[in-house]
């Protein structure tokens, strides 16, 4: 599983960091970034990461298709 976290959308709910603190690094104000290399999710983390993805209130986490990074085609796909 490959994921993207759009930090321009993150509103700092911090739920992802509760589900998987090793993938989602939370700053002192509650905003998330992916930990280094965490865009590639190992199989044993997938369940937690998927739960974070589904529960993110602002849908800041998206799953990327394998092989290329063309999920967000310009503005339209990013909103």
């Amino acid at each position, binding site marked *: 599983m490959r994921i993207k*976290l*759009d*930090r321009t959308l993150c509103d700092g709910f911090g739920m992802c960091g509760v589900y998987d603190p090793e993938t989602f690094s939370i700053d002192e104000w509650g905003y998330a970034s992916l930990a280094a290399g965490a865009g590639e999710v190992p199989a044993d983390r997938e369940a937690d990461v998927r739960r974070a993805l589904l529960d993110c209130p602002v849908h800041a986490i998206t799953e*990327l298709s394998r092989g290329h990074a063309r999920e967000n*085609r*310009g503005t339209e796909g*990013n909103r």
Partner: protein
Amino acid sequence: MSGPPGTASHDLGVAYPGISPRLVIDGARAEDIGAYRSRGGYRPLRDAEAFVCEVEESGLRGRGGAAFPAGRKLRAVRAGDGVPVVVANGEEGEPASVKDRWLMRHRPHLVLDGLRLAAQAAGTGDAHVFVSDPGSERSIRSALEAARKDPSFGVEVSIARVAPAYVAGEETAVVQALNGGPALPMDKPPRPFESGVGGRPTLVANVETLANLPWVRRLGAAGYREVGTEKAPGTFLMTLTIRGRAGLYEIPFGTALRDVLAWLGEDAGAVRGFLMGGYFAGVVGEHALDVPLEYDTFADLGSGLGCGAVVALGRDDCSVATTAAVMAYFARENAGQCGSCFNGTAAMSAVLQALRDQRAGAPDLERLRGWSTGLRGRGACGTLDGATNVAAALLREFPEAVAAHLDGRCGICAGAGPAAAPPAVAAMPAAGS
């Protein structure tokens, strides 16, 4: 070769001695198409693949600040999935820099020729020029009218004008604006070279980078490399502000700031340090006087050459006050999108203002130190990285000044009034046209 600069308040467009200038020309007026053609411009490109190889071998690096190899970017866009788009990025958000505006106002055909070459090399006829400066827009528009009359120009160029903003020239902000959205950065992936304008592979190149392409075309990779250094071939445009006076100079990579100051008749002994890379790399001490000006040498110091904007700090300039002013700018001018950035820049700015006012304590400083490393990479664009660079640079380069502020011993800041604005090039004289 141009002579030494005169005593005008702005020395704009002067070449360093001993080089044959590539980017600057004499005269206050914009170069017209006849003059540009007579200098060898708008030569046809017959073999796009060979040209991309030449650009790769030339070692040309992006002049917008990131210094990414131009040939690699061009190759990626050419090899991308779909018909590419190329964008000349002239939105110079950096307040200490004037070089992009100078180039567009004075050498619009050099920029358009570079854009044309980039488009043809990428395999497309679709190009954009992205600007905020009205004078630059007028200059490019008028040059484009002249260039289009020659059918061999071969590229459809549209001009997009946006409101000026620090973040508006970031490459994903450029893409988002051209796609009809706000000129605000987007998080990655995808990068524009993968999916940009209209979802197509997009080359977003700084106008100075593009202005070098006609020279690669004319000189070939080996000829291009005859000036500059192995890792930073060619020349670059430096916006140098010293004693409140801004100048624009074409300098060969590898030159030391001490030599630039000597050429300009400035006293290096009166310089306490520099603000490097515009606001992006923060302050550096006077040891930078003898470091060859190129991307890697300054990166090795923990500093950066960035877009080539350098502000000299005099003996009456306090490194803490300058840093605080720049951080206040970041706190105000960030895109307001990423929480780590709008919170982090505000927090770092608050500590630096307190330090500048000599009322910060050791715990404040430790928090600043923590943010200067811990917030790195936590924003969608480079703004937060610039802000962390600025904080880290002060702590690294001027520990004695920081200590003096903790102890209330800074004589410069003791009698200072409200915080001053950061160094910026306030205005550029309009080019005649």
